[in-house]
């Protein structure tokens, strides 16, 4: 089962290696990982998408909490949240397929950020499922390159997690 976990960590030397080393050392799977600073100078927020059953998820949460560098672990499994990801997709677009490509971009409310006679580069943000759907539609035209950021997640409702 797929799980998304946000971890607030001290923004210090080696912390990314520490977290990813924890996952690899214990055989936990990292599907995607996204990290950036927060409002507070010394705190970074990591969003990790992992998979496993309940027992593995419990161990992941506990092991993350155990790390000295970890300030807070937020497990979004079963919680109400907003999940968004960014993707840049370079797709072949020549003659007949050019119009179809633009129609698909319009339907998904994505944007074209680069144009050449033979290609478009498309920028899309949305839930991972929406990005997957766009990719499926573009695949027959010939996708040259995809860059995905991995999802970031925020809880719904008025409460904010500081950091």
């Amino acid at each position: 089962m797929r799980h998304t976990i946000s971890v607030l960590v001290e923004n210090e030397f080696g912390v990314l290696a520490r977290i990813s080393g924890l996952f690899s050392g214990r055989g936990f799977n990292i599907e995607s990982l996204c990290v950036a600073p927060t409002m507070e100078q010394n705190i970074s927020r990591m969003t990790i998408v992992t998979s496993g059953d309940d027992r593995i998820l419990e161990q992941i949460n506990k092991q993350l909490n155990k790390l000295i560098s970890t300030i807070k672990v937020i497990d979004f499994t079963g919680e109400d949240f907003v999940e968004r990801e960014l993707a840049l997709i370079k797709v072949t677009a020549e003659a007949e397929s050019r119009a179809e490509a633009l129609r698909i971009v319009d339907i998904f409310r994505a944007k074209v950020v680069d144009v050449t006679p033979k290609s478009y580069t498309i920028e899309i943000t949305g839930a991972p499922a929406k990005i997957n759907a766009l990719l499926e539609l573009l695949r027959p035209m010939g996708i040259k390159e995809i860059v995905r950021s991995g999802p970031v997640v925020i809880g719904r409702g008025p409460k904010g997690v500081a950091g």
Partner: protein
Amino acid sequence: MELTGSQILLESLKLEGVDTVFGYPGGAVINIYDDLFDSSIAHVLARHEQAAVHAADGYARCTGKVGVVIATSGPGATNTVTGIATAYMDSIPLVIITGQVPTPLIGNDAFQEADICGITRPCTKHNFLIQDIRDLARTLKEAFFIARSGRPGPVLIDLPKDIQVAKSKFNYPEKVDIRGYKPTYSGNSRQIDKAAKLFLEARQPVLYVGGGINLSAANEELLKLAELTRTPVTTTLMAMSAFPQNHELALGMLGMHGTFYANMSVTECDLLIAVGARFDDRVTGRIDSFAKRAKVIHIDIDPTSIRKNVAVDLPIVGDLKDVLGKLHDKLAEQPAEVQKLIEGTTGWRDSIADWKQNHPMFYQPSESIIKPQFVIEKIRELTRDDAIITTEVGQHQMWTAQFFEFRRPRTFLTSGGLGTMGFGLPAALGAQVAFPERQVIDISGDGSFQMNSQELATLVQYRLPVKIAILNNNFLGMVRQWQQMFFNKRYSQTCLELPIDFIKLAEAYGATGLQASKVDEVEKVISQALETPGPVLMEFKVAREENVLPMVPAGKAIHEMVLAS
């Protein structure tokens, strides 16, 4: 007042109560060693950095203090890794300070540079690279706090050479506040109440006690709880000296080489109270058959150990001293109920007594050949109760756990989690440094001894009267046993038949060497060694193909023991 980084380091160590460090100099730490030259801090020079770490580890295990190591960069640092991993697996508080190349050279493949922070990230509780001299004092305070608090563990500080000579004002912080690290010491009182209730309902309870007992120094609380409720106690390898093995409630070790009655008790119990233990695979055997009939209470300071391997009915996170004390008091408030518990569990204790009677720990005695178990029993007979025993790893280690009747806390130092050959001799060294007046004996095998035999020099230099007992069977015994039982006696690379003159080796370093090859020489050699001042190496030529029994083969349940080979 401005001090150099090296001076700040030594002053901070003093403020942390450190009076002894173990280490080995080198280019990247030469400034620290210059300051050590006339410091009040004592330095024990090992002959290999791995041994320096094991020595600090042995020192920490028997005193409860944080062991401190200083090593140089590059190969000095990488030599510490096995020692650090050993301490990490057994949760021993250490602070290891490694020199590092100057900051501008880091990442440049400089001479004697190693990314020791990267290398030890998975085997330290935490590590630090000092990047600014103004962080040094605070980092040292944090390192000691992290090492000794919660579930203890080794902490490494990598200190670049330029920071060692840089100057800064020295201000040792009053307090430490790490927002990501707040261990729980006080057990939840509702959980403790529930535990008391479960206890009183049990008919076949067992206390399963692990190394956490030593780390929390909760021996008294454990003894009081066991005696109040008359509950049998089984101890893991790490806890063998935490509960007096001559106590009538003692079941001995459980698990792969545990006693018959300990393994049967755990298999048949209806309440398993796990105290500072982590359900390691050497203990559980086949995990889906482990303590099948029992409700499980798991008391541990580390939440990650709870529910990691085994389903737990009642978890209690907290310091053992605190939780066991409160649990005892809660039960002591209900004397009538406790009396009912004791009466209701009489049949259980009788069954256990039957198991003990019908399947005692046993080995085939001999008049003609020295049995290794016999040597261990003799050492017990001839040493004081407060003698500190260290072991290396292998058959002799298991026999020591099985046949040496430990009676006092912190008298058994052994590498359990990592199982590091070469641990015993330097650990004995560290223990003797901590307690110069006590008897310290390293029980070793011929294979293990050669992993850190160079430390004979350290023993002689500091006049540490450690007595080393090599149970020489000219084999890598434990592996040979597996090859006999599972690989048709194909003794691949386990015959250590080269006849080493261990006495000459000991004397080459300036120690005393003794040998026993006949049964009636054993007692004489041990007595002579104990009366001889200074370090003594005793070689016992023991039966070659003796096996450690009982044995739970890999993949079997712990009640499926092999009792005879």
